[in-house]
């Protein structure tokens, strides 16, 4: 199919494309993809690692206290009470970890909200459609593994089966 544009029309079309590129560049800049890649995501990752570490540390300290109390010599009631009181104070102190982990998780949630806001603004402006499939082979392999091995992860509250439901399920599938 043959078509032709006169010089004025061609200039107009090229100007529109140039304007679009300029605006697109501005939108990409607003996206701050480099900052997300080099600072925001690594920062959120560090926060989450710190949450895991402090939660694990506190859990181990709490278990150590419980083990100490369970194995303590209770033959002298006064000494035993003093010992248990001291261990219980340590228990209260250990529970302070929740304040810090709560703050860290709030910061990660805010980070995710900011990224979501920037990405949705960019997608909305450019009118891009979601591509099907996965961004990388690793992502695809991970998804296949999760599906094949039923790796759903912990359910949210009110989702998934409770122990009573599971007991009933097991009973109903007895003999299979």
């Amino acid at each position: 199919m043959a078509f032709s544009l006169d010089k004025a029309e061609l200039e107009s079309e090229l100007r529109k494309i140039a304007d679009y590129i300029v605006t697109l560049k501005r939108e990409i800049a607003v996206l701050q993809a480099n900052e997300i890649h080099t600072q925001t995501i690594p920062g959120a990752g560090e926060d989450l690692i710190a949450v895991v570490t402090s939660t694990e540390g506190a859990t181990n300290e709490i278990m150590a206290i419980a083990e100490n109390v369970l194995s303590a010599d209770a033959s002298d009631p006064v000494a035993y009470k003093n010992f248990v009181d001291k261990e219980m104070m340590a228990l209260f102190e250990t529970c302070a970890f929740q304040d810090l982990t709560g703050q860290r998780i709030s910061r990660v949630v805010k980070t995710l909200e900011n990224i979501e806001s920037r990405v949705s603004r960019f997608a909305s402006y450019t009118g891009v459609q979601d591509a099907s499939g996965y961004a990388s082979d690793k992502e695809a392999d991970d998804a296949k593994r999760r599906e094949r091995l039923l790796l759903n992860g912990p359910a949210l509250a009110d989702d998934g089966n409770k122990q009573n439901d599971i007991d009933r399920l097991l009973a109903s599938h007895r003999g299979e």
Partner: protein
Amino acid sequence: MAADTGMPILVVDDYKTMIRIIRNLLKQLGFEDVDEAADGKEALGKLKEKKYGLVISDWNMEPMTGYELLREVRADPDLAKTPFIMVTAESKTENVVAAKKAGVNNYIVKPFNAATLKNKIDAVFAPAA
């Protein structure tokens, strides 16, 4: 028949904290001979070296999951009859049904308490009705 508190138990979980919790709960129930493994592959190696009276395994581990471990155990004539309890956060129906079909003896959803662990161990070793 109640569970023999002298039997060796293998606890499989990739979180040391969870192994410590289960080990402590088992100790309170009278089970002292407890070994541990961090995933299905390590557990399979230990199962081939020592006869265990019970396996208590998490589901979601790498490189080998508890679900894969269960199927490997049931497929091995020397290990096939080893009682196997899954202790996991995987609570969807498809997980429970798949585990049952693969031959799990009981299934505990996390978080759980000492009474649940005791009840499920007792149920595994109770005479068939």
